[in-house]
């Protein structure tokens, strides 16, 4: 029995090894052929041209900007909502809002994409008087909404874990409740909040389907109101049709994405471990 359970335990390790192996093995050839610098820093992606160019800087930057933008919008709203739920809301209100947040987390990403495509994209075009609404901006909005639940729930957990003694001490010094929250509770919960943010970054960088439906998918260098391609959408949009070097290059993009994610995972692990160590 021991062996059987041991083997079950090994599946996780095995999976990660296989995934890593496949990502690296399928991603390296194209990079070797194109050249790492040309690949990472090339600004032009023309994968099917006679004289193809495989520069993925636009995708990398788009993913970074897109994620950054989503964090910029999502974190304040998420954190404030978490504060509201954890410290301010009357219990009855919190009991309504909290399941709402959970529900937000349960909505499939394609549904976000669908509504983004039908409602958000035309609205963006109209609001900003653009000829075309598919844009980095629309993608940022969708991503910001999608990462909201994870930021809220992780931050709320962290805020709830702040020892009440800290807050009592602050109140007893004549701080108002709000002052206490912002000067004591949030700083004390910062590593948990950071974990939520990093988790959000991971989600945002990895999201494909919803982004694909609103970003326009042109390999432009990122501009707020232009159609752009993320690392994820660069892979998924051409994968079906690709062959030869183009296909290999797509796997190389996936490798880059994979490395991004691994780095984020490690950071997340460190934050959480440090938090655990504090206790």
């Amino acid at each position, binding site marked *: 029995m021991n062996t059987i359970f041991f083997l079950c335990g090994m599946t996780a390790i095995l999976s990660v090894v296989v995934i890593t192996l496949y990502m690296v093995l399928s991603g390296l050839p194209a990079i070797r052929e194109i050249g790492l610098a040309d690949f990472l820093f090339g600004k032009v992606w023309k994968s099917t041209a006679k004289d193809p160019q495989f520069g993925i800087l636009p995708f990398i930057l788009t993913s970074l900007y897109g994620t950054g933008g989503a964090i910029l919008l999502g974190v304040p*709203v998420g954190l404030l909502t978490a504060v509201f739920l954890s410290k301010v809301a009357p219990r009855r209100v919190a009991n309504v809002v909290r399941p709402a947040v959970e529900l937000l987390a349960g909505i499939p990403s394609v549904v976000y994409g669908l509504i983004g495509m039908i409602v958000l994209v035309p609205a963006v075009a109209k609001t900003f008087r653009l000829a075309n609404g598919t844009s980095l901006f629309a993608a940022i909005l969708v991503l910001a909404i999608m990462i909201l639940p994870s930021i809220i729930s992780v931050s709320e957990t962290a805020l709830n874990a702040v020892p009440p003694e800290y807050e009592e001490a602050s109140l007893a010094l004549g701080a108002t409740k709000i002052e206490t929250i912002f000067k004591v509770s949030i700083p004390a919960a910062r590593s948990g909040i950071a974990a939520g943010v990093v988790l959000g970054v991971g989600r945002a960088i990895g999201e494909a389907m919803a982004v694909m*439906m609103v970003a326009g998918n042109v390999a432009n260098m990122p501009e707020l109101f232009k159609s752009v391609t993320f690392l994820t959408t660069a892979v998924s949009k051409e994968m079906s049709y690709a062959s030869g070097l183009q296909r290999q290059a797509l796997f190389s993009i996936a490798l880059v994405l994979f490395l991004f994610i691994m780095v984020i995972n490690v950071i997340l692990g460190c934050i959480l471990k440090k938090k655990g160590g504090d206790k």
Partner: protein
Amino acid sequence: MANYERDETGKIVIPPLSKGRRAYDLLIKGFLYLAALITCALLVGLIGYIFYRGLPNITWELVSTAPSALKDTIGILPNLLNTLYIILISLLIVLPLGIGAAVYLTEYATNRRLVWLIEFTTETLTGIPSIIYGLVGMLFFVQFCNLQTSILAGALTLVVMILPTIVRTTQESLKTVPESYREGALGLGATKWYMIRTIILPSSIDGIVTGCILAVGRIVGESAALLFTAGIGSIIAKNIFAAMSRSGGTLSVMLYVYAFERGEFGVAFAIAAILMILVLCINFAAKLVNRKLKNKF
């Protein structure tokens, strides 16, 4: 020592909170309510819109037929079935694996490094985005294992993806089983496996069920990982074994396909509404199980 302003009766006069601090308080409070409002408005807006657009498009014909290219009709029955098949097959595979891994971690493993490694890789799997699962699933299951784009390949891909969920929830509930149960059973001469089978697993069934529900939620919502592995087939197979070896689109995948590839927004919203109802049910079920769990201890 402070000197107090006193009124004629000798009572001290208490100054109000300074204007700056009061303004700060009000401002922040405003932001807090605003943020919560945004979150709720988003939710209400999203769900309201989905139902508003989707419910009128749900017809009996839609949910009870297969699409026909000849008759140019659309039905999502095959996709409903595919979703069911994928859930069934993935759970069937992932449950033994995930529970086994959790049992190994909590009951058997003695090597601290190995435990760390397994837990670390499990965590890592949680963070990998589904598009990468899709690609590796395509390379490994579809091409290397030569399963073709099929429900089986999709389910296997999902198995890896939801493994962490099952492992973690099972592990959590295994940890809540009191040590004294283990001692009691072993003290009677039970083997470890007998003890696990008769005492440990039955005591942690709730956690396992919670894990299943979460996993089902994940499977129902998944699209990117399935697009390249299970494909978009929409034919009613003769039976589940025939279904396993052919391409089959789940509801989420077909939502993407109908909306994005075919521009059939009515159908897309109908599927979205069905998905939302499923998600609501899943959340509700998870709550129920959790409540039962709390009552038990």
